């Protein structure tokens, strides 16, 4: 026995809608001609679709255009609020630290302070670190070569990116620490034209100028309180920080990246300078 095929009205309407959305030429009459027995059911549904898609296009264009006018301003306000929230937390920690002799290493940004505090290549306490890339890689090596990242709940989480392991949160922490008056950035002018490796030292925002990060006076006191706690907990903590800072915190960038790329290849997937570095 032959059965007549059941017409799926919903599907017909959705197919028609899909075509309208894709901008294909189709009219309601063309559809109705194909399914004359369902005209009365189909027509209002198709009309609604046509009307709504048309209005939807117009509304989308209008709202996108309106939003574009204040989009930047809106994001800047939101960013300021986010940074203010982070800043409040950092300032609270600073206030506590400045009142005590010793404070426990609890926040990830405190690793930045400790790294800036310990002696480096020139054997000076509070020796600065030049360039954001060197900073990021040193913090990465702390998480890979020691167990100290596990001392806190949320350490930086590195992902493969353009210059190997990367966590943009380090940028934000440095920015907030600077606003809170804990660290300082000093511009560093090259005495001779910088090499290609030196250029990548500042990430991709290179503008012929490098940056040296150091602690402020308050930052120094905060870091001292952290160092005292580390010293009491395990002398090895400060020694390991010092070792990483001395060996990698001031190493030529190409050499540092080569070391990381060869030892942690899983972080080079997105690298844009891999071949150049491994030459």
């Amino acid at each position, binding site marked *: 026995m032959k059965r007549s095929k059941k017409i799926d*009205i919903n599907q017909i309407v959705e197919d028609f809608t899909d075509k309208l959305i894709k901008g294909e030429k189709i009219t309601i009459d063309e559809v109705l001609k194909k399914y004359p027995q369902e005209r009365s059911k189909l027509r209002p549904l198709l009309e609604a679709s046509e009307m709504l*898609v048309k209005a939807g296009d117009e*509304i989308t264009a209008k709202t996108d255009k309106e939003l574009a006018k204040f989009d930047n301003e809106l994001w800047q306000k939101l960013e300021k609020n986010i940074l203010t929230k982070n800043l409040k937390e950092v300032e609270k920690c600073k206030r506590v630290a400045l009142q005590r002799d010793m404070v426990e290493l609890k926040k990830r940004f405190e690793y930045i302070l400790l790294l800036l505090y310990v002696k480096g290549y020139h054997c000076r306490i509070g020796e600065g670190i030049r360039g954001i890339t060197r900073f990021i890689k040193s913090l990465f090596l702390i998480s890979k070569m020691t167990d100290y990242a596990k001392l806190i709940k949320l350490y930086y989480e590195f992902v493969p990116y353009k210059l190997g392991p990367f966590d943009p949160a380090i940028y934000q922490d440095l920015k907030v620490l600077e606003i809170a008056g804990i660290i300082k950035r000093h511009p560093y002018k090259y005495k001779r034209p910088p090499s290609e490796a030196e250029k990548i030292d500042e990430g991709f925002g290179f503008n012929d100028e490098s940056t040296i990060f150091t602690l402020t006076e308050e930052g120094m006191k905060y870091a001292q309180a952290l160092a005292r706690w580390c010293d009491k907990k395990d002398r090895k903590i400060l020694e390991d920080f010092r070792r990483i800072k001395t060996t990698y915190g001031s190493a030529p960038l190409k050499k540092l990246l080569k070391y990381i790329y060869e030892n942690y290849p899983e972080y080079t997937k997105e690298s844009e300078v891999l071949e150049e570095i491994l030459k």
Partner: protein
Amino acid sequence: MVDKTPKYLDSDAECVKRALQKEVNAYQVLYERYKNRIYRYIWLKVDNKEDARDLTEQTFNKAFMKLAKLKEPTYFRQWLFKIANNEIKMYHRSQTSRIKTDSLDDAAQGKVMDNPGLSALSQSVIWTLQQLNKQEQEIIRYRLIEKKEIAEIAKITGKKIDAVKYLLRKARKRFIKIYKKNYNLGPEKKEGDKNEKV
């Protein structure tokens, strides 16, 4: 602005996780991902550019400041729209007397909205949409304003594909009925009746 979303921030859940670790970039990706949809969503419900702008800012601000309260990061989108909804509700509450007067005016003037820059068709469509219930509005918005595919809507709403199609059909029917009734277009055409009887 973020020029290109880094791969590790592809999912909302990862963005939320990263944002909670104070990564401003992750907040920015979430903002970029939802700003147009949220603005449009609010705009459709308040009919006022300035208020839509303020409510969009409040929505993102609340979401970002209270992100730690979001228990399931994969539901960021739903959570964000819920916040937007609450903001809209509060807005309407604060405007109650005005809205009531406006509604009466609408009824008297044949539901013509004052929305410069939009065609009469779009204005009447917006008004009609606002007469539908929440579920009908939502399903129409996804499919015909945001232009999402049925499968995607099913995923977002947690409904089966057939259920989405059924709801869409119901919503379209109600939409056109209200539209025709209120814009004096008379009853739906009966042209197919004859054929149906055959």
